[in-house]
C-alpha cells in the first residue's frame, strides 16, 4: 500500500507541475463542451426561431391562399417575405432567388385557386346528385401550389412544409364540399338544412409529450444532449496525454528503475489509474458545473440533472475507467509518442463517431448501428442519456457501467500481456 501511495504522490506531482498539460486536461474539454453545445444550440434555434427565409407569393385572395398563408405565418419556422427589393417577383424571379440560396423556400399559390376548387366541387356534386358517379377531375383542372426548395434545405423541413400545405388544402376542399352539399340538398329538399360545415369538427387530436421513467417529463434540448456527449468525448481524449506520459516515463528510464524496485507493472498502472480517475472526475464535475451555472450566462439553457448526481458520477467514473484502461493499452503497445498520439486521437474519434457522439445511432446505416454497440462511448452515452433525458435510476443504467469496467479490465490485461511478452522476447 505504501508503494501505491508513493506512486500516486509521484503521478500527482508530475501532473500538477505540468501547467500546459493541466490546461489541456481541464480547460480544453470545457471549451469543447461549451463550443459544441453553443453550435448545436444555434442550429436548433435556427430551425425553431424563424431562421428559414421563405418567399411567398399568394395570388389567391380566397380561403385556400389565406389558410396556407396563416399556417406559414404562425408556424414560427420561417421568416416570410412577399417581395424582392420592394417589387412583387415573377415566378422566374422566385425560382432564381431560391436557386441562389438567398431564400430557402419559395411558394406560389396560383390566382383563383379556391374558386377553381369551388367550381370543381360544385360540378361534381351536381353530377353526383344527377346520378352520374364518374367524378374525376382532369389534371388540367387541378390546383397546383408550386414549392421551390433550395437543395441545401433539410429534407425533413421540406416534408413538413408539404404535409402542412396538403393538410390545409384538404381542409379548404372539405369545407367547400360540405358547403356545396348543403346547397344542393337544400335546393332539392323541402326542408332547409343548416350548413353541413356546422357539424364538421375535429374528431382526432394529437397530444405530444416527452416521456421519461417515473412519470417525469424532461424536455430535451441541445444542452441535455450535448453535455454528456462531449463530456464523454473529452474524457476519452485523456488517452493521448495518458499514453504520452507512460511513454515519456519509459523513455526516461524511470519506469525501468521502478521495475527494478519492489513494485510491479500492475502497481505502477494502479497508481496511474487512481490519479487519472481523479483528473477525469474533476473534469466531469467542472463540466457539470459549467452546464448548471455558466451556460445560462452564455444564453444557453441550463443543464437539468434532476437530482441524479450520484448516478451521473458513477457513470462518469466507469467511463473514466474505460478511457484510462484504453490509455494504458495504447501507452504500453505504442513505441513512440507519435505512434501513441496519432493512434489514440484517430481511434477515439472513430469510437466517438461510431458510438453516436456526432450523429444519433438510429440514423446510421445498419452495419454501423451493429458496430456502435461495441463502442464504449456508446455505452457511456446511453447511460448518460438514460439518466439525463429518460430519468433513469442508477440500477437502470448499471449494465452500461459494468460493460465499461469490463472493457477497462480487458485493456489492462492486454497491456500486461504485451508488457510481459516485450520483456521476454524484445
Amino acid at each position: 500500500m505504501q508503494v501505491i501511495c508513493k506512486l500516486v504522490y509521484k503521478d500527482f506531482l508530475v501532473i500538477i507541475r505540468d501547467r500546459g498539460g493541466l490546461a489541456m486536461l481541464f480547460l480544453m474539454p470545457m471549451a469543447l463542451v461549451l463550443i459544441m453545445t453553443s453550435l448545436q444550440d444555434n442550429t436548433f434555434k435556427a430551425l425553431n426561431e424563424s431562421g428559414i427565409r421563405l418567399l411567398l407569393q399568394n395570388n389567391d385572395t380566397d380561403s385556400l391562399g389565406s389558410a396556407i398563408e396563416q399556417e406559414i405565418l404562425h408556424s414560427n419556422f420561417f421568416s416570410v417575405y412577399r417581395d424582392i427589393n420592394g417589387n412583387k417577383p415573377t415566378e422566374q424571379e422566385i425560382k432564381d432567388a431560391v436557386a441562389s440560396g438567398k431564400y430557402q423556400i419559395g411558394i406560389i399559390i396560383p390566382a383563383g385557386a379556391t374558386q377553381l376548387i369551388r367550381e370543381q366541387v360544385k360540378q361534381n356534386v351536381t353530377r353526383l346528385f344527377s346520378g352520374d358517379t364518374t367524378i374525376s377531375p382532369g389534371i388540367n383542372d387541378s390546383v397546383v401550389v408550386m414549392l421551390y426548395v433550395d437543395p441545401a434545405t433539410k429534407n425533413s423541413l421540406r416534408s413538413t412544409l408539404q404535409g402542412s400545405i396538403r393538410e390545409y388544402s384538404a381542409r379548404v376542399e372539405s369545407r367547400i364540399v360540405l358547403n356545396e352539399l348543403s346547397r344542393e340538398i337544400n335546393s332539392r329538399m323541402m326542408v332547409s338544412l343548416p350548413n353541413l360545415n356546422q357539424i364538421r369538427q375535429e374528431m382526432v387530436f394529437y397530444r405530444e409529450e416527452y416521456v421519461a421513467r417515473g412519470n417525469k417529463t424532461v424536455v430535451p434540448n441541445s444542452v441535455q444532449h450535448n453535455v454528456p456527449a462531449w463530456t464523454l468525448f473529452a474524457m476519452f481524449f485523456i488517452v493521448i496525454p495518458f499514453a504520452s506520459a507512460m511513454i515519456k516515463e519509459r523513455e526516461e528510464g524511470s519506469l525501468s528503475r521502478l521495475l527494478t524496485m519492489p513494485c510491479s507493472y500492475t502497481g505502477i498502472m494502479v497508481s496511474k489509474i487512481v490519479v487519472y480517475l481523479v483528473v477525469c472526475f474533476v473534469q466531469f464535475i467542472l463540466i457539470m458545473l459549467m452546464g448548471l451555472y455558466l451556460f445560462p450566462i452564455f444564453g444557453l439553457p441550463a443543464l437539468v440533472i434532476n437530482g441524479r448526481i450520484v448516478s451521473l458520477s458513477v457513470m462518469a467514473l466507469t467511463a473514466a475507467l474505460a478511457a484510462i484502461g484504453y490509455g494504458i493499452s495504447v501507452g504500453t503497445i505504442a513505441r513512440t509518442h507519435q505512434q501513441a498520439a496519432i493512434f489514440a486521437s484517430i481511434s477515439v474519434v472513430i469510437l466517438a463517431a461510431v458510438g453516436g457522439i456526432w450523429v444519433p445511432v438510429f440514423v446510421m446505416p445498419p452495419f454501423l448501428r451493429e458496430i456502435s454497440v461495441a463502442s464504449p462511448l456508446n455505452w457511456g452515452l446511453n447511460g448518460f442519456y438514460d439518466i439525463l433525458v429518460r430519468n433513469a435510476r442508477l440500477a437502470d443504467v448499471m449494465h452500461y457501467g459494468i460493460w465499461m469496467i469490463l472493457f477497462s479490465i480487458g485493456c489492462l490485461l492486454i497491456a500486461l500481456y504485451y508488457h510481459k511478452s516485450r520483456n521476454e522476447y524484445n
Partner: protein
Amino acid sequence: MNNKTAIHIQNLTRYYRGNAKPAIDNVSLDVYEGRIFGLLGPNGAGKTTMIRILCGLLTPSAGEVVIGGYSLRHELPRIKRIIGVVPQEIALYPTLTARENLSVYGGVCGLQGKELKDRIDKWLSVFGLEKSQHQQTGRYSGGMKRRLNLIAGLLHNPKILFLDEPTVGVDVQSKIVIIENLMEINRTGTTIVYTSHYLEEAENLCSYLAIIDEGKIITQGTLNEIRILHNSDSKLEDIFLEITGKDLRD
C-alpha cells in the same frame, strides 16, 4: 576476501527478437560478496543486456541466475528488495525536486518517515546536493543529475548495487565524488557490479574484472590475474584492445 557468492550465473543466454545471434551467449560467472566487479566491453558487447537481466528487466532465454541466494526466475520480488540499480539513463522525474524524487524512490523501496528523511539528508549532503534539493531536477546540470541518479539507487542500502556507466558525461569533480563514495559504500559491505567504457576508472575502482565481447566473457580475474593470463604488464586499455581488437563496433 569473502568467498560467498553474491551472484551466480550459469549458462546464461539471451536472444533478441529477429536476431539469430545471442546478445548473451552461454555466460557463466560468479560475483563474490564485497567485491567491486567491473564488467567491461566495447559497444554492443552485451553489458547492458547482462545488467538488465540481472535486475529482472529482461527474461533470460536460457540459463540460471541466483542473486543473494534467490533464484531470478522464481524469486524476483525477493531479489528486488536486496538490489539497487543505477541505470545509464538519468532515470529521474524532471519536474520533481531532488528531494521529491528520492522520497518517491526511497518510499517504493520501503523506507518511510524519519528513516527516509535522514537517509535523503545524508546522501544529499554526501554528494553536495543539499542546497539544490528543492530545485526541479530538470534544471540540474549533467553532473548533478548523475549524482542524484546514483543516490536514487543506493538510498535503501542495497546488498548488491548495479551501476551501468555511472560516470558518463560528468566533470572530473563529480567523477571523483562518485568514485570515492562508491569505494566507501563497498567498504560497508555492498557488492558492486559496475560497467564502464572508462578503463582507467575501472582499473582503479574494481577488485575483479570481466571483459565481455559479442555476448561472451573472454577474460576475467583481478587486474594482476588478467595481466598474467595475457602475458602483459601494460595498462588495462592495452590488454582490452589486444583481446577485443581495434575494429569499430556498432
